[in-house]
């Protein structure tokens, strides 16, 4: 508890004890009134002060003002009616303060819990200095320095391992419990925990640019992108309080006047009491606090599972996802291609592969990588010149002085070179050397082991349609789609075609159904941003993907998509529960208050009780592990 909260607790206790005491020990006359007033002032002086300041600042309708008017009014009524019942005013103030205290305590506590959940911030980095280790602030470590990470420590900064092997726990980043083995030459990202072995790491980034900082920044900022529900509530709060105040005023004045006109006694006291009850219910606190808290808890819970949701608005959209569009490579398949066959070639297999690997040496496309891997030897880039990439087709280059074209059938057609089709299922790289066809290389990709389950899980989570988009050949695409149970597939697409396919789907879908695009963040930034919600997977360490997507899956497990959707559904259902619950109770109490059935005690429950329940409900959004 903070100092402020402790002070409030003491005030609550003193005032509560005084209130009980005054009801048990008979005191009479002015002394009694003075003691009651003292109890009232102890618990409520700050509210009265704030209400006064509010009026001076021209802000009349805030909750302080309302509480002040309601309680002062109740005391005045007690004096006017000579009933001497001051309990109500003090109790209302007391409960209001208890509610506020609980709220600030619960919010502070859950804020702390959620931050602890995301406690991946490293406190220090070890730098070797004359043979001994020195702990320094990670912010002070320059790019290219060598840092030492001992077993049990967090990797503070992204880098490349220069010495040592270790197994890493990436759980804090990915939610994945299996350790990852790393060795010299491997890239290592900050936030992982070293479980065995001492590592020396050459840093490749500053701390502020490292994965850990990026993730923390992203999660902390997420609450600033507000959802529609939050906007609705803040707009509602703006209208609600003045509206209730005006109704209270009308309630205090109109019925007695009507009664007078009809020749009956006015009954001012009863109606004013009802109006004061109104004022107590008029604070929108329960709504205003529980909505951001639910989102914050949901985002915190999701990030613990390795799903980073960049804002409450994305949480909301994700929960309405009905169509999921996938990129094939790296998303549903592993993106690890292997050379499966070399056909129709007159050159030796190895020679053809060499030409292909050299021509593709500058490309980071998974297919190029697999060619380079299959080639197996060091690539001398000096042998290659004039590399020209033709997006979605392939590329042309000059290798050892001969021109090489490597790509799909479209490239061959474009160049006007007759080619031989292949009967194998896979990605076919046709190769032409000096303008004549030289054969093709078959490369195939492996489906991710749980991709099929992931599609089924999505269907179960309420996704109506799954679509796969790929630049790959029709044959391959259809085989993968059939294997996995994807509803529709569009193949042989250029990156720009993917955008237009998504646009087509966006135009056809019903307004309320949202479309999510899932990609690996490489080459699909335009589609990620075009879709209602862009999900990038396997993004650990990839800044571009983290930048472009709305939801980032830290590892490349497609099951996480369904999980993310389920988390967002749970979070949103809690948000709606709270909105409906708070509104129903408040309006019910307003109605009962107007009829004179609900008294001020009732009203304070509607205010404080609802808030406490809403806050407790909101915290439930944090528990998403078993979804």
């Amino acid at each position: 508890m903070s100092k402020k909260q402790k002070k409030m607790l003491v005030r609550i206790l003193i005032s509560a004890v005084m209130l009980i005491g005054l009801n048990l020990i008979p005191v009479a006359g002015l002394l009694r009134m003075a003691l009651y007033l003292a109890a009232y002032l102890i618990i409520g002086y700050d509210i009265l002060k704030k209400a006064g300041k509010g009026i001076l600042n021209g802000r009349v309708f805030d909750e302080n003002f309302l509480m002040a008017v309601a309680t002062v009014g109740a005391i005045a009524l007690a004096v006017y009616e000579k009933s001497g019942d001051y309990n109500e005013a003090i109790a209302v103030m007391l409960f209001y303060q208890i509610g506020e205290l609980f709220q600030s305590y619960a919010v502070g506590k859950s804020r702390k819990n959620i931050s602890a959940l995301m406690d991946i911030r490293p406190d220090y980095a070890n730098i070797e200095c004359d043979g001994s280790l020195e702990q320094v602030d990670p912010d002070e470590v320059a790019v290219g320095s060598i840092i030492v990470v001992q077993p049990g420590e967090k990797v503070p900064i992204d880098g490349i391992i220069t010495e040592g092997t270790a197994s890493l726990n990436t759980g804090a980043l990915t939610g994945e419990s299996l350790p990852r083995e790393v060795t010299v030459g491997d890239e290592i990202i900050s936030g992982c925990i070293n479980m065995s072995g001492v590592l020396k790491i050459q840093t490749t980034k500053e701390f502020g640019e490292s994965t850990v900082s990026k993730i923390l920044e992203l999660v902390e900022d997420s609450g600033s992108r507000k959802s529609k529900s939050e906007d609705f509530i803040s707009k509602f709060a703006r209208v609600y309080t003045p509206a209730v105040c005006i109704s209270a005023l009308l309630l205090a004045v109109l019925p007695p006047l009507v009664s007078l006109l009809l020749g009956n006694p006015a009954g001012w006291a009863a109606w004013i009491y009802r109006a004061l009850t109104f004022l107590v219910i008029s604070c929108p606190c329960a709504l205003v606090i529980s909505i951001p808290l639910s989102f914050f808890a949901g985002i915190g819970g999701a990030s613990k599972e390795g799903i980073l949701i960049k804002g409450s608005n994305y949480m909301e959209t994700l929960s309405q996802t009905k169509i999921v569009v996938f990129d094939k490579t790296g998303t549903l398949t592993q993106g690890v291609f292997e050379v499966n066959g070399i056909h129709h070639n007159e050159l030796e297999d190895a020679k053809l592969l060499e030409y292909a690997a050299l021509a593709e040496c500058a490309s980071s496309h998974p297919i190029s990588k697999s060619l380079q891997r299959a080639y197996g030897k060091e690539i001398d880039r000096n042998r290659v010149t004039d590399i020209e990439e033709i997006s979605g087709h392939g590329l042309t280059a000059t290798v050892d002085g001969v021109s090489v074209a490597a790509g799909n059938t479209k490239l061959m057609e474009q160049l006007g070179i007759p080619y031989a089709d292949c009967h194998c299922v896979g990605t076919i790289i046709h190769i032409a050397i000096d303008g004549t066809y030289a054969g093709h290389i078959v490369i195939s990709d492996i489906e991710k082991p749980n991709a099929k389950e992931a599609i089924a899980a999505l269907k179960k989570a309420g996704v109506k349609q799954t679509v796969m988009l790929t630049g790959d050949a029709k044959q391959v695409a259809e085989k993968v789609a059939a294997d996995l149970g994807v509803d529709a597939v569009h193949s042989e697409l250029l990156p720009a075609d993917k955008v237009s396919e998504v646009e087509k789907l966006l135009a056809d879908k019903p307004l309320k159904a949202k479309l999510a695009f899932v990609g690996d963040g490489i080459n699909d930034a335009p589609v990620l941003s075009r879709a209602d919600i862009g999900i990038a997977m396997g993004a650990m360490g990839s800044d571009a993907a983290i930048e472009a997507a709305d939801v980032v899956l830290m590892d490349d497990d497609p099951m996480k998509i369904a999980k993310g959707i389920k988390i967002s559904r749970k979070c949103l259902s809690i948000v709606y529960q709270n909105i409906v619950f708070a509104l129903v109770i408040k309006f019910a109490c307003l109605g009962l208050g107007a009829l004179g059935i609900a008294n001020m005690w009732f009203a304070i429950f509607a205010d404080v009780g609802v808030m406490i329940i809403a806050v407790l409900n909101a915290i439930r959004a944090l528990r998403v592990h078993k979804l």
Partner: protein
Amino acid sequence: MKKTYKIEVDCANCANLMEEAARKTAGVASATVNFMTQKMIVEFEEGQEPKAVMQAVLKACKKVEPDCEIEL
């Protein structure tokens, strides 16, 4: 230019009011208050001196919620 400030505010509605007050302050292009992380993110208009603008923001916020604090 965008800057993030740490704030102290107890109730969520007050945070909304602060956000509104900050947005209306001259020199502020946009402002968001994140109640859960207790942060205010302010984007300043071109050529404005953040320090002077933030003084005005603090004053405006104090007006709507006397209890709030902005760490400048």
